[in-house]
């Protein structure tokens, strides 16, 4: 039966060789396609434009290297063993069917991953702590409140008292404290080139530090599924100089319509809209949104803008 199998294998060798060529060709093609579509700027996660994204990219690279350090040798050993110990006629590699134990080897492969995980764990912790703090200390941050709606993004600026939909302008070089909530199913706020995402959740005001070092238009999108219009929940984050930012805010104050309570009710309705700008919004809009969805049950440790009198009628103390 053994021999039978071997013969069969041989018989199919041609086919296999052919298939293998095919596979190589396709993989090669794939590589070329990937490379050609690869001006690096398309890989926005790998091309961060701010300190948070950079910090995260560093961790991505570290983790990739640490994994590669084990994975590549494993695969090499794997190929070697399979080739060396193939059951084919004339293979005189040693055969020890009873050999099943080696303390040394076992220690090695419990040990190496432990070390790797130790190192990776360390960097993970370090990065996690770093990105939970403002990226630079000596510049006063700007606060932008973000509310995800079905299916659009509302940005309110407590400092400037202006509001936008589906785009946000921010000053470059200034840490931005995004404060996130949702008045619809939870979404996730993601601007890959500035840094990682964070969920927007009803009743909760979540903090996310981001910062752009270069001016430009950055792609942002919702990352957590919210139903029919989800695919259209893209937004633009435009980083400009501080001076231009101030000018822009002033222009909005002057030229744009106000967002009224009724206007907000309109926004809440499930549909998609284009970019909008507003010169003002109802007082405490964001706080009200958070509270109406259960925000009163939590203590909010960081401020939600300049309206610090957030009610904390929380029953637990």
């Amino acid at each position, binding site marked *: 039966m053994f021999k039978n199998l071997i013969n069969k294998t041989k018989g199919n060798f041609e086919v296999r060789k052919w298939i293998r060529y095919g596979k190589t060709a396709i993989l090669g093609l794939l590589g070329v396609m990937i490379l050609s579509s690869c001006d690096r700027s398309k890989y926005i996660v790998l091309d961060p434009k701010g300190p948070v994204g950079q910090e995260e990219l560093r961790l991505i690279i570290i983790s990739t290297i640490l994994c590669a350090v084990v994975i590549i040798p494993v695969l090499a050993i794997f190929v070697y063993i399979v080739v060396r110990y193939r059951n084919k006629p004339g293979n005189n590699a040693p055969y020890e069917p009873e050999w099943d134990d080696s303390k040394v080897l076992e220690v090695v492969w419990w040990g190496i991953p432990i070390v790797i995980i130790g190192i990776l764990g360390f960097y993970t912790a370090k990065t996690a702590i770093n990105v939970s703090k403002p990226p630079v200390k000596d510049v006063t941050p700007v606060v932008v409140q973000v509310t995800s709606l079905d299916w659009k993004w509302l940005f309110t600026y407590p400092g400037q008292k202006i509001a936008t939909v589906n785009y946000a302008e921010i000053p470059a070089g200034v840490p931005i404290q995004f404060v996130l909530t949702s008045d619809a199913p939870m979404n996730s706020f993601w601007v890959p080139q500035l840094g990682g995402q964070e969920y927007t959740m009803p009743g909760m005001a979540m903090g996310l530090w981001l910062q752009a070092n270069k001016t430009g238009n950055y792609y942002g999108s919702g990352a957590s599924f919210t139903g029919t219009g989800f695919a259209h929940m893209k937004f633009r984050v435009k980083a400009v100089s501080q001076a231009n930012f101030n000018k822009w805010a002033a222009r909005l104050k002057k030229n744009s319509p106000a967002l009224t309570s009724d206007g907000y009710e309109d926004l809440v309705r499930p549909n998609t809209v284009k970019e909008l700008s507003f010169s003002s919004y109802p007082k405490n809009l964001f706080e009200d949104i958070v509270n109406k969805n*259960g925000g009163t*049950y939590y203590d909010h440790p960081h401020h939600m803008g300049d309206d610090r009198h957030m009610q904390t009628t*929380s*029953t*637990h103390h």
Partner: protein
Amino acid sequence: MSQSVSAQASGHGHEHGHDQGELKVLGFWIFLVTDCLLFSTFFGAFAVLRDHTDGGFTAHDFDVTGFILETFILLISSFTSGLAVLAMHKGEKNSLIRWLIVTVLLGALFVGLEINEFANMVEEGATISRSAFLTSFFSLVGLHGAHVSFGIMWMIGLIIQLAQRGITPVTKNKISIISLYWHFLDAVWIFIFTVVYLMGVM
């Protein structure tokens, strides 16, 4: 084809050096452990949501005498189901049936009191859809109540079987299993008593 054997002789499986009865008890025990995890899930939700009263009924408003009564009734029924098992081991069928009936009655009383408690709350407007706290309360306590009710139906079935067949290895095994179940429900109640009621009115 092959002759059929009465399951009375189902001290079978000697070929494996163990018997069906023991096997079933182990399986049931493991089931109870998983049931315990089911309750934990509801306990977890309750613990997280217990303050989320939305301005309505709070844990301070529980009827203290009601739950104290329920607790003692269930405790006593756990004891009587134990007495039933003792009677069974002594081979006293009538006494066994009697203790089971007492247990069933106590269980029914417990369920009745619980339904009454729920009804009173609902009357006050404290319904399951009033707040997250109440949703988690009714679900957790109701889940336990449903378990007790199920146990009552089951026990009645066993009483009938005992009356029909007397104490056999099979019925014996069934009784051991239900008494396990009954004690388990008592154990779960202890935590409901403590976490839901006592910590609520505290």
